[in-house]
């Protein structure tokens, strides 16, 4: 599954206002609930936070991939957010997190979830790509960078 199939431009937040983990996840929940009215903001935020309690999804090199399974979803949804100041996401390398890919998946779709995680990780392990995403001027540029990179995978 291509990243572009799951990520809409409206779900790209180029300058997150949040300064901490809870507010950050609330910001994503708020964004998705306004674009997919079937999803309640509080439910999404709650599920994302519950997942964080099992262990941070703040991975390394300024990247986090928060994710949750949502009963009412029938397809995988991807959101992207960028914090220019960085957020303490209790990352494994203790570095602030700047780039967020939020993955919302229907229940019982382990395979798709895993494939998308793999796809994102293949992309995000490249330092020049991370730098490009940090330098991008707006939503359009971020979207184009991601789509272009996605084609190479």
């Amino acid at each position, binding site marked *: 599954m291509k990243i572009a199939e799951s990520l809409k431009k409206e779900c790209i937040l180029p300058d997150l206002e949040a300064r901490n983990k809870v507010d950050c996840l609330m910001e994503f929940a708020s964004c998705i609930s306004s674009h997919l009215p079937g999803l309640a903001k509080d439910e999404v935020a709650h599920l994302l936070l519950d997942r964080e309690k099992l262990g941070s999804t703040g991975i390394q090199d300024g990247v986090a991939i928060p994710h949750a399974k949502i009963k009412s979803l029938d397809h995988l949804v991807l959101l992207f957010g960028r914090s220019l100041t960085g957020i303490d996401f209790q990352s494994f390398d203790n570095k602030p997190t700047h780039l967020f890919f939020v993955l919302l998946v229907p229940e019982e779709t382990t*395979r798709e979830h895993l494939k998308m995680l793999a796809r994102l990780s293949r992309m995000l392990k490249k330092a020049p790509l991370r730098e490009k995403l940090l330098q991008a001027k707006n939503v359009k540029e971020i979207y184009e960078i991601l789509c272009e990179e996605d084609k190479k995978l």
Partner: protein
Amino acid sequence: MSKKSTKSCVRKTKSCNPGWHSATVKIVHREGFHTRPAAQFAEIAQRFAAEVEVRCGRKKGDGKSILSLLALGAERGDKLTLRTRGPRAEETLKALGKLIQKG
């Protein structure tokens, strides 16, 4: 224990590079090698000074990098080949193999 086969390349196998220890383990976790197991794996690997390489089919990853491990996209039933080299390589291999088998 039947799912795991460990061999020391130092001791015998000609086909292995000298100094490498390797083991093949099957992913038993229902959800595959996803974020949590990958993070635990990298965390343990980082505690050791030995080099850690993980292969899944034709893909190869750095065992100390969560992103690199997630990029393997390993599913339940897939076999991972773990390779370690350097200080306490065998001990490193055992600790990591045990983690995967635990699911």
